[in-house]
Structures are given as structure tokens and as C-alpha cells.
């Protein structure tokens, strides 16, 4: 019954988007974190999605069955430094290193992730209705 696999597909989409929302929340929460070295500074994170190839058949029919989070990447953008000698985390020269989170990027990501999540919820709701109608067949 292929309508049931849609629940898995849409569920995997929702799970992936919620991971994305989680990283956005983590990035925004750490936007103002500071550290005493560039290595220890918080770097903006973003999940990388990949399609799940499950149906093994002819090469032409290999088809995606949902989506998964392939990994989480860290932004390689430059870490900004500030001169704050009074900061308890400042290094010997008086510098602190803040995160490279771009709040505008994160907000855009958040909107995109929540829209995609809603799309998957909508797919699930429609499928549930269709299944219900199929169960009522002949009544």
C-alpha cells in the first residue's frame, strides 16, 4: 500500500526540517557568544540534506524514499575579533572572538525551514484524508 509510505516520506521531511530549525535556534542563541581564541569561537552550523535511495530496481527506477540529514557543516566564514580588555574571556592581548553567525541568514533559513515543514504536514493531512476515503469505499 503505497499511500502508507507517504507517511514515512513526509515524516522524514519533517524530521529533516526540524533538525534545520534546531540548528537555526542554536545559531541564533550563540550569535553573541564570545571565546578567547578563534578555534574556540562558535561557528554557524547548517545541516546538509540528502535523498534516501531505497527502492533498488532497474537503474531508471531507483527512486528516492524520503530525505535524511547527511551531516552538519560549520561555516568557514572569518571569525570576527573585538578588543575588550575588560572581558573575563579576553586573551593576553585583550581580544575576544565572537561567533560568525549571520542573524539575517538564520532568519531566512528559519522561514524556509518552517514553510517546508508545513508543506510536509499538508502532504500528510491530504494522504490521511485519501486513506480515510479509501476505507469508506462502498459505504
Amino acid at each position, binding site marked *: 500500500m503505497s499511500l502508507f509510505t507517504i507517511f514515512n516520506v513526509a515524516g522524514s521531511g519533517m524530521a529533516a526540517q526540524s533538525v534545520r530549525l534546531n540548528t537555526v535556534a542554536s545559531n541564533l542563541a550563540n550569535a553573541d557568544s564570545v571565546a578567547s581564541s578563534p578555534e574556540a569561537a562558535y561557528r554557524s552550523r547548517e545541516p546538509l540534506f540528502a535523498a534516501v535511495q531505497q527502492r533498488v530496481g532497474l537503474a531508471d527506477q531507483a527512486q*528516492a524514499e*524520503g530525505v535524511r540529514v547527511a551531516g552538519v557543516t560549520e561555516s568557514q566564514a572569518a571569525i570576527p575579533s573585538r578588543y575588550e580588555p575588560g572581558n573575563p574571556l579576553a586573551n593576553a592581548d585583550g581580544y575576544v572572538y565572537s561567533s560568525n553567525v549571520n542573524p539575517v541568514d538564520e532568519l531566512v533559513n528559519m522561514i524556509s525551514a518552517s514553510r517546508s515543514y508545513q*508543506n510536509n504536514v499538508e502532504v500528510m493531512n491530504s494522504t490521511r484524508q*485519501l486513506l480515510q476515503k479509501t476505507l469508506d469505499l462502498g459505504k
Partner: protein
Amino acid sequence: MTPDNLFGIHTKALDVWQRRSEVLANNLANADTPDYKARDVDFSKVLAAASGAADADGVSLATPTPGQIGGASAAQGALEYRVPNQPTMDGNTVDEQVEQAAFAANGVHYQASLSFITAQIRMLRTAITGGQG
């Protein structure tokens, strides 16, 4: 009268709509996956293959005894890549609006096939009960 020719093409159509909704759900789930190419089922091609007595691809099971059910689903194969409306930087060709619209239309088609089958069942029930039930 076997159930297959009682319901005509609608059971096969139902199978195709179901398969297509699965493909479209996949597209929507992978709306943010880099390099994912959106796919769709070519309905007319699948229906032509399903309604033709001779199987073009020759992968269906033979059904020598009346009442046997063929093994291969009508909607297998015939998956094609969608032509993207606009290019994207990450190579993804899913256009969420297009997929949403296709999914909604697909649901309506599925319900239409269902109601045709329901009408056939009602007709049969009327024939059995002679209009008494």
C-alpha cells in the same frame, strides 16, 4: 463478471494516482536537498501501458488462470524528470508551488476514481437487493 472488468479502468487509475502521490510527496520532502531532481509519473503513458492487453515492457506476471492477480504494478516505471521552471544554485529542481498544485490535483483525481468505484458498488448492490436494501 469479474471485479476487474466491473470496475473497469478505475482500479488501475487508482494505482497510478497512488504511485504518483508517493512520487510527489518525495519531491516535497526533498525540496531542500542539494542536487535532487524532481520526478513525476507520466499518467497517459502509464494508463496506456496498463489498459493495453499486451505488456510493452514484458515484466508483468502471466495470469493464465482466470481470477489471478498480475504481479507487476501498473505504475512502475514511466518516472520522468520534471523540466525546471528556473535554475537553482544547488542543482535542486523542486518547485514547491508546482509540486503542491500537482499533489492537490492528484488527490482530487484519486477521489474521483474512488467515487466511480463506489458508484459501481452501489449499482451492484441495487441489482442484488432489487432496490429493497
